[in-house]
């Protein structure tokens, strides 16, 4: 019978933060996550630091929180950031000709509401 090495067992990670406890701020190519109660900054992320996204530097940023993910959009680039850590989950480039706004819509069939944001 094999012995269990308890050090190899990963305990389920507890989410400390929830969307209701924080506020995401998008400004000048950056996303900041603040504590709702204190206003303290939990983390900041510079969108233009991502390779291929230099166009986002200094630009208006649309932000939204969906579950454990902070979504940010600027200059047609869309970023998904981990709510807890601010780590980049994914980044997609949807830039097109012109100066179109970057907008989001959350929700869909079955959800209570749909909201949209724009920069």
């Amino acid at each position, binding site marked *: 019978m094999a012995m269990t090495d308890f050090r190899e067992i990963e305990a389920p990670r507890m989410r400390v933060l929830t969307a209701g406890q924080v506020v995401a701020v998008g400004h000048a190519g950056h996303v900041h996550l603040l504590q709702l109660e204190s206003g303290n900054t939990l983390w900041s992320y510079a969108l233009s630091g991502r390779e291929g996204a*230099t*166009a986002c*530097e*200094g*630009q208006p940023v649309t932000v939204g929180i969906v579950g454990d993910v902070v979504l940010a959009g600027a*200059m*047609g680039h869309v970023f998904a950031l981990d709510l807890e850590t601010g780590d980049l989950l994914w980044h997609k480039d949807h*830039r*097109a*000709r*012109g*100066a179109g706004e970057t907008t989001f819509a959350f929700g869909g069939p079955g959800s209570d509401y749909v909201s949209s944001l724009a920069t």
Partner: protein
Amino acid sequence: MITRASKSLLTLSLGIFALLVGVDNIFDYGTNFAFVQHVLSMDTTFPGNKLMWRAITSEWVHHAAYALIIASELAVGLLCVAGAWRMFAAKSRPGPQFNRAKALAIAGLAAGFGLYFFGFLVIGGEWFQMWQSTAWNGQEAAFRFAASFGLVLIFVAMEDGDGWP
């Protein structure tokens, strides 16, 4: 006399302006360096445009271009200030002598017009397609500066006689 003094003072004001711009760009290097980077990189022009081969992403070229711009601004400023002083010193001289004293001022004003028209509108605006960018577009400011230098240049270059106010 008023006309000659006005030519001198207007040239001086543009000289101080150019010197301030150059000095500000040295002490606050990063603000306008970002502008140079984005314009030369063409990273906010329309995606897929057929002129992207003109883009320069090398950082040392960005620094070199910015240094050239700052040096040009300082040179324009010095020429205009020196030219204004020469005109002011010669304001009571006979017309032909005063007209000859305009040389530095005309050189400075023409260089200022060239800097903002050729450097920012021709090279930045058209070669690097700055007009396509809403984010990093300095065309309006460049036109204001070029127009100011151009108008004062025309005024200063007008021949002065001895019977003028």
